[in-house]
């Protein structure tokens, strides 16, 4: 009996220490001297270079944030479909992974003000989607579109092409592979990846709609009810906008392809 009491006391102790740790992540990061950033591979937001190091727009932003806080950085590559649960269960401190601010996600996590805007774009198969030039052309029952699961691309495809059949994949490379095999008419994804893909295989793929068909704010995501962290990160983003850091990085990663030799 005493044993059971001891054990249950220990259990309750463990639970409460887990729950009472409600300090701001800003304090925690400074105490530990390291910020843990959750991200997932999205070209060119975050990806591994030839040396196996992470590189990309998000990675530059996160590194700069860590430098300004005076702490080390640790990236936690996470499957995109499980990235919000991983944040909520404390696998890392903040998501800096090109996450679009959506009302549904905002119910679960807190977002900072946007540090970037992205939009959905589409790359289509020349033979399968011959003559398609508008969203209405794709919004048909017999049209299949591949997207990455749990992304805003999935939401955008559902909203703008509700009649088309969607094929969901865990990774973007799988969705593109499906397009390469000619099993789907198009892939919807955040710009500029679809354009890059069409440029790489100009005889197989094309861009049916020139402009991005959505505009999405992108923010850092943190756990709910941590206002200190939200305030710090918001002001950091305002600062970075003012200094031109974000604009400069965006021009490098999205406006040029100078970085491509780093990857392959």
């Amino acid at each position: 009996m005493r044993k059971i009491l001891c054990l249950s006391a220990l259990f309750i102790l463990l639970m409460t220490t887990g729950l009472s740790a409600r300090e701001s992540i800003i304090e925690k990061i400074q105490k530990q001297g390291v910020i843990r950033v959750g991200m997932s591979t999205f070209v060119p937001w975050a990806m591994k270079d030839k040396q196996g190091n992470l590189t990309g727009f998000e990675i530059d932003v996160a590194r700069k944030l860590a430098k300004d806080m005076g702490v080390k950085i640790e990236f936690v590559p996470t499957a995109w479909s499980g990235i919000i649960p991983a944040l909520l269960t404390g696998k890392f401190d903040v998501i800096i992974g090109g996450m679009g601010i959506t009302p549904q996600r905002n119910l679960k996590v807190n977002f900072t003000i946007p540090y970037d805007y992205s939009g959905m774009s589409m790359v289509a198969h020349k033979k399968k989607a011959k003559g398609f030039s508008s969203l209405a052309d794709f919004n048909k029952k017999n049209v299949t579109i591949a997207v990455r699961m749990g992304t805003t691309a999935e939401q955008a495809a559902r909203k703008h092409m509700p009649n088309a059949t969607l094929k969901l994949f865990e990774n973007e490379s799988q969705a593109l592979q499906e397009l390469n095999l000619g099993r789907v008419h198009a892939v919807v994804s955040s710009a500029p990846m679809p354009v890059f893909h069409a440029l790489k295989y100009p005889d197989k793929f094309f861009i049916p709609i020139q402009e991005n068909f959505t505009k999405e704010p992108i923010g850092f995501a943190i756990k709910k009810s941590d206002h200190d962290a939200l305030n710090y990160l918001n002001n950091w983003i305002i600062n970075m906008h003012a200094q031109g850091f974000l604009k400069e990085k965006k021009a490098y990663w999205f406006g040029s392809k100078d970085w491509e030799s780093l990857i392959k």
Partner: protein
Amino acid sequence: MLNKKKLKFTVIDIAMIIFIITAISIFFSRTSQVLDYKWEWDAMPSYFFFLDAATGKFKANILVKGFVTTVKLSFWATLLGFLLGIVSGIMGAKGSFEQRFISRVYVETIRNIPSLVLVIIFYYFVSSQFLDVLHLDTALRQSGPAVQRMTGILFASPGQINAFISAIIALGIYEGAYVSEIIRGGINSIPNGQWEAAWSLGLSRKKTFLLVILPQTFRRVAFPLAGQFISTIKDSAIVSVISIQELTFQGMELMSATFLTFEIWITITVLYFILTFSSSRSIAFLERKYALKE
């Protein structure tokens, strides 16, 4: 190996080789022609090792790192699985009613849920309640560089340690259920005559079990257990869903970055095959060697 058979090529062998070669070439010609897939193998070697410009030395790249993580993960998970499985197997075979009940519940629960579900439940619910509270990663970060290097070699870096441990535990629990059944079957397969003979020599029940039954059991189950180790290597791919940086995960990351889907999947397949095939060959070798003495 006294009567070693001479290797002889028969018509069937030649037909088989021709068949395999044709199958492979059909695969490659179809992917490049019909699917219009551009093969780009030239970057592949650099994903194993790359020349570090700063030091002029070759360094391990993502695929090698992933391979090593898979080996480490399988080793620790097997160790834990064996511990759990041996205890549960003995309890299941010769324990009291309560012990047999516990063992049955464990084995039946684990064997009847998909390993994927188990790993996810463990990572999101169990490990965040227990492992994160222990603050293992914080302790490790504050420790000296020597300790960090050692745990890095044996387990994982401080940032990965919590996830790595929960993967080991989840995989270990999963494999343990199968090990338990192997052990239980092994013990039950020892004929009753062995018990009776030992009793008639005046050995107690406990001594009979430890000195007579258990040694014979281990001899019988050694090779099935080694086979379970190979299964663990294959099952370890499943923890890629909780972002353990093992071979499958690293491969998928690489694919997302480079879009070299076929090249990377083929490479990963070959790497797994090398690992499991060499293990199974060495087990078969040991089996032949020791089977002679029985």
